């Protein structure tokens, strides 16, 4: 055989080898794109409609709390809103209201439906409508944006059913927690609830296969099965169907009869999915402030977590991060107010990152037990002081995503209240931020921030009380040149409480997704 006859077969062999080494195939493409945002979001003006689910309508308080809906309409058009109220039996009633352009409309559920302890679904043809709900009782108040999507999983990193025992052995306060499962959908839901406590996992049989019939609400007293627990991380998993879940925790003064009162109220929207990285724009320390972070690891594998605290204005020299080991299905707690590395005065932002990528859920628990300290301790230059309230409790779960446009639904400007917006830039470049307030008693819009720069990793605290916005319920639309995280704090001095939490990000137009912090 002539050697020349080997040429064709050699060429063929080489080409086949090249082809097979070039393309090794691929598995199914990642099924992404439709994961519900990990927090309530606004669709913006391009969106067909919006639906908000406000689950918790009551609390274990001596007297039933008032339930108010705060309907923020930053758009220039009047928005028709349909409200449907539910209780454990089903639909209680439907009402329609109009929200004027660039206004925040407060709707008292009790007035509209003659009962406050109702879950409410808010529907609107406007994608820009943002809805928050607030529970108000004698000594406590809290508010949180309603949910915009359901989920098959919900996480509540920090719940407490403990009693507060003073040094002298007396019980000064106790707490109660309830889980509200809201199913306005057409399919019955089956729910399994488990709680991670300090010494293990609790999965009471009564919490297995809890049925939430379609179009109803189910309220579960967490204290029935996890009694006297200072810290418990709750996981709600659905066997079938969909629900929206919220928890309401109440700290009660230990009094007798009518003297019992709420000392703090913590309303928390469930976290639909764990993530490897979380950010909190807002944190503060100071005298009388207790700030703890609870990291719950719902997976089976242990997680190595670092907590990075960055003081506002001090991004260039942040303190050493804290490292936590979180076993699988357990939680770890770090009390920043006890850590010397964290400056004892002013605001800071916090980022929590799971180093090995194990998704976790993070809760920030803030409790104020006294007023601000002496001015002598204020460092130079003086950062923004902590909120001027003497009592209160708040809980927040941060955000794994950032956005370039945010809506703060409601900031109450009256009665010496001191609402503030905190903007955190977790990215690597300078971000220019603008903000415009709308609503108030007079309506209309007012420029709050105009092209203000926020350095990389830094934060910005904007106190609205300083801006002469008048009184009333005010919303703020904030835009940034790059994705940022926005939180807001609302204080209620007269009731001795405060509300802290992430604002509502606006999804990018055209079906885009919010930017995960991990991608920055």
């Amino acid at each position, binding site marked *: 055989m002539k050697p020349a006859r080997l040429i064709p077969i050699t060429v063929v062999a080489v080409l086949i080898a090249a082809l097979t080494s070039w393309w090794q195939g691929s598995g199914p493409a990642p099924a992404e794109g439709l994961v519900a945002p990990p927090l309530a979001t606004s669709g913006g003006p391009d*969106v067909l409609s919006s639906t908000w689910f406000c689950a918790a309508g009551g609390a274990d308080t001596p007297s039933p709390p008032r339930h108010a809906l705060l309907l923020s309409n930053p758009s220039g058009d009047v928005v028709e809103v349909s409200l449907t109220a539910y209780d454990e039996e089903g639909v209680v009633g439907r009402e329609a209201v109009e929200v004027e352009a660039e206004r925040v409309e407060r709707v008292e559920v009790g007035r509209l439906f003659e009962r406050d302890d109702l879950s409410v679904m808010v529907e609107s043809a406007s994608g820009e409508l943002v809805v928050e709900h607030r529970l108000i009782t004698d000594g406590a108040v809290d508010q949180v944006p309603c949910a915009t999507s*359901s989920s098959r999983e919900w996480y509540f990193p920090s719940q407490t059913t403990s009693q507060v025992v003073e040094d002298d052995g007396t019980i000064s306060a106790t707490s109660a927690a309830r889980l509200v499962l809201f199913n306005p959908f057409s399919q019955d839901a089956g729910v399994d609830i488990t709680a991670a406590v300090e010494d293990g996992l609790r999965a009471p049989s009564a919490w297995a296969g809890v049925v939430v019939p379609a179009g109803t609400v189910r309220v579960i007293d967490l204290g029935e099965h996890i009694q006297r627990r200072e810290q418990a991380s709750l996981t709600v998993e659905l066997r079938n169907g969909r629900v929206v879940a919220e928890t309401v925790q109440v700290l009660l003064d230990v009094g007798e009869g009518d003297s019992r009162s709420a000392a703090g109220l913590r309303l928390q929207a469930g976290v639909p999915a764990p993530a490897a990285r979380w950010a909190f724009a807002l944190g503060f320390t100071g005298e009388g402030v207790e700030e703890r972070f609870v990291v719950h690891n719902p997976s089976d594998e242990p997680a190595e977590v670092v907590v990075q605290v960055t003081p506002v204005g001090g991004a260039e020299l942040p303190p050493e991060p804290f490292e936590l080991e979180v076993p699988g299905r357990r939680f770890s707690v770090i009390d920043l107010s006890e850590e010397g590395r964290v400056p004892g005065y002013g605001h800071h932002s916090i980022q929590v990152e799971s180093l090995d990528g194990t998704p976790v859920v993070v809760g920030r628990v803030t409790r104020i037990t006294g007023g601000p300290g002496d001015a002598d301790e204020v460092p130079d230059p003086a950062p923004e002081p902590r909120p001027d309230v003497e009592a209160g409790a708040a809980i927040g779960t941060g955000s794994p995503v950032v956005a370039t446009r945010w809506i703060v639904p409601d900031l109450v400007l009256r009665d010496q209240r001191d609402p503030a917006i905190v903007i955190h830039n977790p990215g690597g470049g300078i971000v220019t931020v603008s903000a415009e307030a709308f609503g108030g008693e007079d309506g209309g819009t007012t420029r709050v921030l105009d092209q203000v720069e926020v350095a990389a990793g830094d934060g910005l605290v904007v106190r609205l009380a300083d801006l002469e916005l008048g009184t009333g319920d005010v919303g703020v639309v904030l835009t940034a040149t790059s994705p940022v995280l926005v939180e807001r704090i609302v204080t209620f001095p007269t009731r001795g409480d405060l509300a802290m939490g992430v604002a509502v990000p606006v999804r990018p137009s055209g079906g885009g997704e919010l930017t995960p912090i991990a991608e920055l």
Partner: protein
Amino acid sequence: MDHDPNEPRPSRPGAVTAHEPGGTTPATPGQGPDRVDPVDEVDEDELDARWGFAPSEPLVGHGAPPVVAVVVTRDPGEWFEDALRSLGEQDYGDLSVLVIDNGSEVDPTPRIAEVLPTAYVKRLGEDRGFSAAANESLTAVEGSAFHLVLHDDVRLDPDAVTQLVSEAFRANAGIVGPKLVDWDDRGRLVSAGYSVDTYGHATEVVEPGELDQSQHDTPREVFALSDACLLVRSDLFRTLGGFSEDLPYFGEDVDLCWRAHVAGATVRFCPAAVAAHRNRFGERRAVEDRERLELRHEARSTFTNYEPFRVLRLLPAVVVLSLVDLVGSLVMGRFRRAGDIVASWAWNLVKLPSLFRARSRVKRIRRAHDADYVHLMRQGSARLVSLVRPEDGENRLQSAAEAGRGYLRELTSGSQRDGVWFALVATFLALVGVRDLISGPLPVIRELFDPGDGPGRLLSEWWTGWRAAGLGESSLPPAVVPGLGLAGAVLGGSVGLARRLLVLGPLAVGALGAWKLFLRAGSTRVRGAALVVYALNPVVLNAVAEGRLGAIVTYGAAPWVLRRTARAAGVEPFADPLEPRPRPLRAAAGTGLLLFAVASVTPLGAGLLVAALAVLALAPAIAGDRPGAVRMLGSAALAAVCAAVPSLPWLVAAVGSGELSALTGLWRGAGAQPSAAQLVTGDIGPVSVGAFGWGVVVAAAYSLIAGRAWRAGWAYAAWALALLTWAATTALAQTDLLAGAGAELVLVPAVLAMAVATAMGAAAFDHDVVGSDFGAPQLLSGVAILALVVSLVPIGVAAAEGRWYQPEGDFRRVLRVVGEGEGYRTVWLGDPDLLPLAGRPLEGIDGLAVAVSNGLDPTVTERYLLGDGEGSRRLRSSVEAALRGETTRLGRLLAPMGVRYVIAVDRPAPEPFARSETPLPDGTVGALREQLDLSSIELNPGLSLFEVAGTWPLRGDLGQVELPADDEDPAQLVQSPTEAPEPLLDAAAGVRTRVAGRVPGGAPLFHGVEHDESWTLTVDGERVGPSPLFGWAQRYDVDEGGRAELRWRTPVSTRALQAVQVLGLVALVLLSRRRRAATHVRRRRRRAAEAPVVVVGGEDGTVPEATRATVAGAPAPGEGGGAP
């Protein structure tokens, strides 16, 4: 003038009186002209007749009855003079010759005049067929006692006419025929009469080439004789009206004899008369459609000549036999014969009026019952036996036997035994592997569409030009839709059977194509190698498993397209370069029909085949036959153009809509993509071959080493095609563009290439290796065979499963419990590779497409989506909004579109039938569950089913419906729930192009299809045009109620496209037909105007001087007879 054949004819001057009814002969053999009527010798004659002794003495003298020899000729060869000379040398005393020239290109008169100056010549201006030409004697001759019908290639023995006339008188026969022997070898018999079976099928009594050993030398009554030489009594000939002119060639002699039996006459074979017949019809003119003509003429004679009761009795049997013949022909790959059978039936059905007229004529002449002559016919069906005959159609019985013997010889031949074994193994495995698909369930998965509930709907979609796909669209469907409808209609309304044939038929057709691909190579080894690689290729088996119909159909056509194109180009080994090539247009038209059939299902498949031909055209170029390569390219291009003509409607519509996937069938999907190695080995589905798949590659590579000349050319070209195909498929896999039609379709050219390359390896072994010195090629041949055998191992294992892992169940099975009917629509969501209908991708959501079916069952037309109307866009945007969490009221948006169900699927079939899964994007089902007006129905893990609340009927009364102020704003639909209108105009019947009923006055009518001005509503004769509603649907404002009709009027442009399609298809069919053997033009005879006694001239009426002659007993032309 007609006569009773049993009546004596009057004597004429110079003519011999016809025989008496008693059968006495006017002359005795051996006697002279003056020895007429020797009554005392009658006993001896009877004795001779009884013992079969033929009279040997010439019948001459004054008393000989006049005989006119009618020679029909057309472009005669050099033998013609011999034939004429034999007539001139006849010892018969009263023989005239009339030559009828049936449209010769060269006037034969001088040749005739030179040899036989007394003969008359009548020229016809064109070929009217043998029958019509012979019938010219009816008007051109009068006064003769007998017509001797002759072909122009028959040479009579000198006493032949005498013997025939004697036999006619002796046996009182109406028709007498001689013993026909071979022109060149008188020792071999050509014909001794026909054996005709009950169904009119005639076969020669003698076997082809049979030696004449006096075994047929007994005069006898037969059913029919060859009209190569036929003595027929003139009065009988006139009574019968001559030959049937509806039968121009092939079968006209049987028909004539049959009618003679009907008229009470007898047909005799006279072995004493001998004629040599050249009998090479095929050399003189194209006879490719001989079998078709024979088939249809057999049927024609059968239905014409039998009595009514017998026809009725035979009809079912004829139908069954034809079906058996048809199926048998299809199974045996004799598609030409199958086409002949169909064409035969079609011809006879079209000619029904003519048939009834012919029956009427037969009725008038009938003097005998069928029972009187059927004993002369052979019982049973010779056609069934002839199934095994070879393609040339000649010498069928012996050829069949020869073929069988040859095949057995091949089986026992050591040199070809491996090829035979490969073929047998391939056939066995293919049959075993597909056994459950033949009779078992054939699911609706991917491209294996549901054909619907009957052929009417499919045909209607084509005829009306309104398709139910999506929310309705004005377009002609792909040809597979009406094609399936037609097939269903032919199969008695069973579109399911038509679908099964469509799915499984190409598997057999493709395998047969591979077997016949290298027929001319003359090597079973080569054919076996091609068959085993092609028929058992894992690519096509996975196409079956995965429901890739486009790949299956393309696979079925590929080897045939290659074979036809290469033969048309005259390249080796597909054709002998020295043989004449078929006409390019005819060849291209046939190939174009094949490509059109493929394009009907998958235009991309047809395009791939043309591209493959272009690459394979390298083969003759490499082998040194550049003209052949150019011809092959040209033939492929011409075939593509031919195929494009009838495909034009879909091409125009697809190009006009800009929907490329309507032509390619490919979408971007999210499923797993095979690696390049898997693509090369075909390991791309449930029929997993793993590393064994490299066996075929190794076997095919052998041809690169061993091949020479055309073997090397085809091997190199095949490998070039394979490499290009694999590279292109890999590129598509990388870009996730293989969803829908799948990798299987794109890989079909590579499958063909591997079969060609492997076959070339076998051919190279035969031609280039066996005779050469021992070396590497010999050693490597063993490796190649071993590799091929190894590659069959996993296929053999998979064959045991019985259905190539195709799922047994489909979504229909699961959804049947939910509901049926068509008065609503269903939205399907899922990866476009999984949906059983065509979907459109959702913007920004990779791997998710939305599709719409009418009712719950997707049908064939919904597999081909074209238009993207406003309704379709709104439906998609609504679904997108719901999936992105932008609305929780999807139901309110879908309800006016008539959507009752939303189905999300993540696998091609429900559990437990699915073998693979492409997960829906996270959150898809969650987002649907979140919709407040969708109710979830739990059915099966493979699909998520939701029911829409408040679905609108497809046609409804908007009178009580409060529509949003801005009905085009979807947000208002979301905000303000609208009650569904009351159904009207048979809304439950689903989408129809014509519905009627009563409508109330003063209320608008809602019609849930894409807005189109071609819809009209007529209320009590008053037409109302549609106006848009919701931006996509239509409303009709009816002032006064009454009887209404809602109707779709097909646009003129659609009609024009239909005309182009039909005319193009008809033109292709006509062009691809084998050339007709005759142009039969019916001509009305002008008996009254013609002269009573012969005379004949040229076409212009002139009579050549040299050819003038006088028929015995008749005046000469110009003497009173009157020349025309």
